[in-house]
Every structure is written in structure tokens, then in C-alpha cells.
């Protein structure tokens, strides 16, 4: 059966983190792939249960730091030796030890900006609208409840069967997420 277009997925609500991790593992064993789990604080096991692996973020930060480092040093070299060469206490124009502090600060600044902007970009934030917020009880995802959503775009998704499957996991409640 093809999924109904206005359905984003089916959501199950759990009381505690262990049930959510167990439910996510079960859903994965069942063959579901297009799903997401929501919790009020980070749970490492949940990420593993979703079958996710490494993030590209560290590479983004490394590249950012590298650009900051080269850029900071190049700026100082260009300013001090080419654009505005002035003699300070008889020091050479390319007085590299004096350029280290600013190079260091530029490295940190660029790496930190890449970490934050990279995290937001990879997470697709800011995102003003998302279908999960259509379920009123989802407001508790930022308090004390744990949610598993199997999305309609999953190859194995079948509205009735998926709903039955989620109900078999003994959640507190199962709701339909409208798109």
C-alpha cells in the first residue's frame, strides 16, 4: 500500500530512555530505516540504535581551523612585509615569532565558528517548521518523554502495519504525525 501523502509518519511515546532505545533497536531489526528518535537530552545508545555512524563535523572544524591559521598568518605577513613595511626596533619585516599569537587566535576563531555553523547546517537548523510538532504531546520531548517516529517515506512503511508494530512495543501512546 502506498503511504497517504499527508501523513509524515507514526509516532510512539515512551516513558523512559531504556524503552526508547529498546524500541528503536526492535524497529531496526524489523527492517525500518527512515526513522528518528527524540529525547530531552543526548543518549549515545540511541544514535547507535538508529544505525548512524561517524559525523562529518570534525572534518569541517579541522578545515575551518586550517583556513583560520593560514589566513591569520598570511594577513600579518602581507600587512607587515608587503603592504605597510615599517621598521620596529630593527626587527626583520617577516618577524614570525611576533605573528604567532594572532595566528593562534584566528585558528581558534575560525574553528569555533565552523563547529557551530557546521553543526547547525548539518542538522538543518534553523528549521521553523517540522511535522513532528503537529502532535501536541510532542511538547513533552523537551521535558521528560521519549519519542520514536517511523516516517512514511520508509520503504517498509505501511500505515496500519507500522502502527500495529509500534503498539506492540508497549508505548504510552501512538499518534499519527500529519505533514
Amino acid at each position: 500500500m502506498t503511504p497517504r501523502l499527508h501523513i509524515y509518519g507514526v509516532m510512539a511515546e515512551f516513558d523512559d530512555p531504556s524503552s526508547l532505545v529498546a524500541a528503536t533497536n526492535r524497529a531496526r531489526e524489523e527492517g525500518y530505516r527512515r526513522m528518528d528518535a527524540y529525547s530531552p537530552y543526548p543518549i549515545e545508545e540511541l544514535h547507535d540504535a538508529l544505525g548512524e555512524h561517524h559525523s562529518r563535523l570534525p572534518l569541517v572544524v579541522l578545515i575551518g581551523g586550517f583556513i583560520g591559521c593560514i589566513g591569520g598568518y598570511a594577513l600579518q605577513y602581507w600587512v607587515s612585509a608587503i603592504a605597510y613595511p615599517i621598521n620596529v626596533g630593527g626587527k626583520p619585516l617577516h618577524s614570525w615569532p611576533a605573528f604567532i599569537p594572532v595566528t593562534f587566535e584566528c585558528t581558534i576563531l575560525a574553528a569555533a565558528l565552523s563547529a557551530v555553523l557546521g553543526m547547525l547546517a548539518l542538522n538543518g537548523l534553523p528549521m521553523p517548521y517540522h511535522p513532528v510538532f503537529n502532535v501536541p504531546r510532542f511538547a513533552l520531548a523537551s521535558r521528560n518523554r521519549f519519542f520514536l517516529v517511523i516516517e512514511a517515506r520508509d520503504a517498509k512503511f505501511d500505515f496500519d502495519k507500522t502502527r500495529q508494530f509500534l503498539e506492540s512495543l508497549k508505548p504510552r501512546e501512538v499518534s499519527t504525525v500529519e505533514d
Partner: protein
Amino acid sequence: MTDSLLPVEDPNRAVVGSGVPPVIAPGHTFSSVTDKISSIVLTRNAPLGWWLGFLLAFMLANVLLLSVTYLLVKGVGIWGINIPIGWGFAIVNFVWWIGIGHAGTLISAILLLLKQTWRTSINRFAEAMTLFAVACAGVFPLIHMGRPWLAYWMVPYPNTMGVWPQFRSPLVWDVFAVSTYATVSLLFWYVGLIPDLATLRDRSPSHAGRIVYGMLAMGWRGSARHWHRYDTAYLLLAGLATPLVVSVHTVVSFDFAIAIVPGWHTTIFPPYFVAGAIYSGFAMVLTLAIPIRAVYGLEDFITMRHLQNMAKVMLVTGLIVAYGYLVEAFIGWYSGDTFERFVSLNRTTGPYAFFYWALIVCNIAIPQALWFTRVRTSVPVLFVIALIINIGMWLERFIIVVTSLHRDFLTSSWGMYSPTFWDWSTFVGSIGLFLALLFLFLRFLPMISIAEMRAILPEAKIEEAS
């Protein structure tokens, strides 16, 4: 004292037997932690203490506004500075404020990397303190420049004058160090706030609250994939902020150490400035945390464990600072240099000797009381000691800036410095700005990281399914 400095995986485990107070009082759940912390922000009425405190702080902040306005009209001549003491209060206050700012990043970054779970309930608040202290610090070098409206000349940008900053000067390094520190501290603080802003969005009773917190939360929904990248970003930021925090006060100390003035030109300055910064920062965190936990009834979250640990950090960094004073005096004597020897003699017996000995009493003598458990477990005594250290650290910067400048190599360039009314009003006004920002933070943002508190609760433990 090593017991609580070791990583404690289960914060509640520490209760049993060891006599060490827990990081979070027993009996709390995801919902109780969320409700307790968010209710401080979401309540309609702020406590009377908040209103009184904010009003006083706001009035003092206006004193700063008036002082700076008068300064812009008349120029730096309204202060007590003159040749040979051209730096005076402005630089004393700058170094003092930036030092206070160091505790926030230390608590949030270094203690995170060291897996110190006790940092959780004080990091948000300490980071906010950092931001506001750095904001106050930033004011002083700007208004000290004489023509503050030309401050942007310090930034390297192509201009019609064809001039560029002089990158061999530590004062230019300072511009980069302080602005990077302010930016990274803000990023760190904001990233930490995102999940809590989502909590406030979901719980705010007012429409305006839902919209404002909703925009700030950027649509955070707590997805496991997002949390994973979030944790990675947070950890990387901590790793970046750790060398940064050490570099900032090092660069500030270069402002002095790179110069040839006796009393400034010494290699002990970078480590001793960094230790002093952490010392004063923890003193300020204690000064603020003690009244706040009492007013808001947060003794469950900011427990005696936190106060005691902070007292221990103060004791250690205070001893490093004491070592710095000692080495400074020793090297002055050991160098055999007439001018270096004179610095020590002048500090201990010269015209500013009273302030030098006051500094020794405030920073070295009195804090030794922290060796005693009875002192570390008494909240009022801790509060008084923290206040004394704040004063002592301010005196330290006064001694460094003023006594070194007032006796130069030539007797013809000797002079005296005394602050004017406007020196004092600017300083007191900056304390007002700091406190006013802090009161606004307490009212509108969660002062304890709710998401991190949930993660250290016993019920957050994952049990393997059978």
C-alpha cells in the same frame, strides 16, 4: 582533597559512605528538574530580591553611562592618569574583569574535558558571568584610548589612509585575543542554551514567550541525530576553548611583559596571570552563586559539593599566585639589576606599600583558611573569603600597573597616581553594568543547563533490554 577531583560517574554514588555531598540532591526526576529550573524564568512574578537587585544594578549602570558621557565630552583628563602613570584605573579594571571572565570557560570547557560532573549545575551561569565580565572588560581599553570613536582603526581593514595595524605589538594581539574570546564564549554559551530554549518554547504560557524562545531555539526537536552532532560540536568547542582561555590572559600579560619597565618585564607573568585569572573567576562565581542559590532555593542543584570544590580550586590557584609573587621578588633580587631590586623594595616599603601588604593579606594570608574543612563547609565564611579575594585580585592589578610605572629608570620621570571621582564612578558603574546584565539573564534564561541536569539523573541510565 583528591577524592572529589577524580571523575565521579554516578553523581549519587558519592553520597554513600564517603561523606561527600552529592552533585544533585536525591529524589529528582526529568520532570522535577525541568519544572524547577524553567519555572524561575516562566513565572509571572520575579522575587522581590530580584527587583531590588536589578534596580540597584541598573542605577549603577547608569552611573557608568554618565561617566562615559562626561569622558567623551571632556577627554581622559577627567581621570587621575598622567605621565608617567598613563594606564591607571582603566587598565586595572580591564585586567580585573577579563580575569573574572576566565572561570566561566574553565568550568564549561576544561572541567567538561576532565569529566567533572559537578560542573553541570554551575556552567551555564558561570558562562553568562564570563560574557558579562568580558563585556565590562572591553569597555575600558576602548574608553581609555582618548578617541574611542576611532577604535575601529585597530582592526586590519583596507582604508584610504593606507595604514595597517602593527602586528608586533602586544596591544594588537590583545584586540584579537579578547575579541576571539568574547565570540567563542558567546558561541559556547548559545550552543549550550539551544536545547533549553526549546524547553522554554514548549513550556512558555505566553504567546510572545513561545515566539521569542521558539526563534532562539531554531526549531530544535531533540532528534538523536541532532544530539550526536550537537555533542560533537560541544566537545570540539570545549577542546578549542581550553587553549583559548589560557592564551587570553597570557596575551594580556604580554601587554606588560613585552615592555621593558621594571616590574613588568618578567617571564613569570603569563602563567601567573592565568592562575590569577582562574583564582579571581572562581571567587566571583562563589560571590554570585551563594546569594543566588539562597534566593531561588537552588540548594538541591548547587550543593555543598559545588561550593567545596570551588573553594579547593581557589586554594590551589591562590597558591600558584603566591608562588608568582615570591618568584617575582626572588628574581628581582637574584638578577642583581639595580632597577629590578628597587621594584621589590619600592613595593614593600614605598608610597604604595599599604596596598601591597593589603594585597598579600587578601590574596595569600586569608585564603589559607580554606585548608580547613570547617571553613569550606560554612557558606557565609566562603562568601566573605570570596569577596576578599575579589578585592585582593583588584589590588594585585593596581600594584602591577601603578607601582611599576610610578618609579621609572630616571628619577626625573617619577610621579604619583591617585584616582579621581570619575575613575571611581566608571569602575563602580561597570560593576553595575555587570550585575544588571546578570539579573536580566537570571530572569529570562535558565541559569542551570536543564538538558545536562537530566543527563546526570539516575533515571537517565539505560538498562539493556532482556
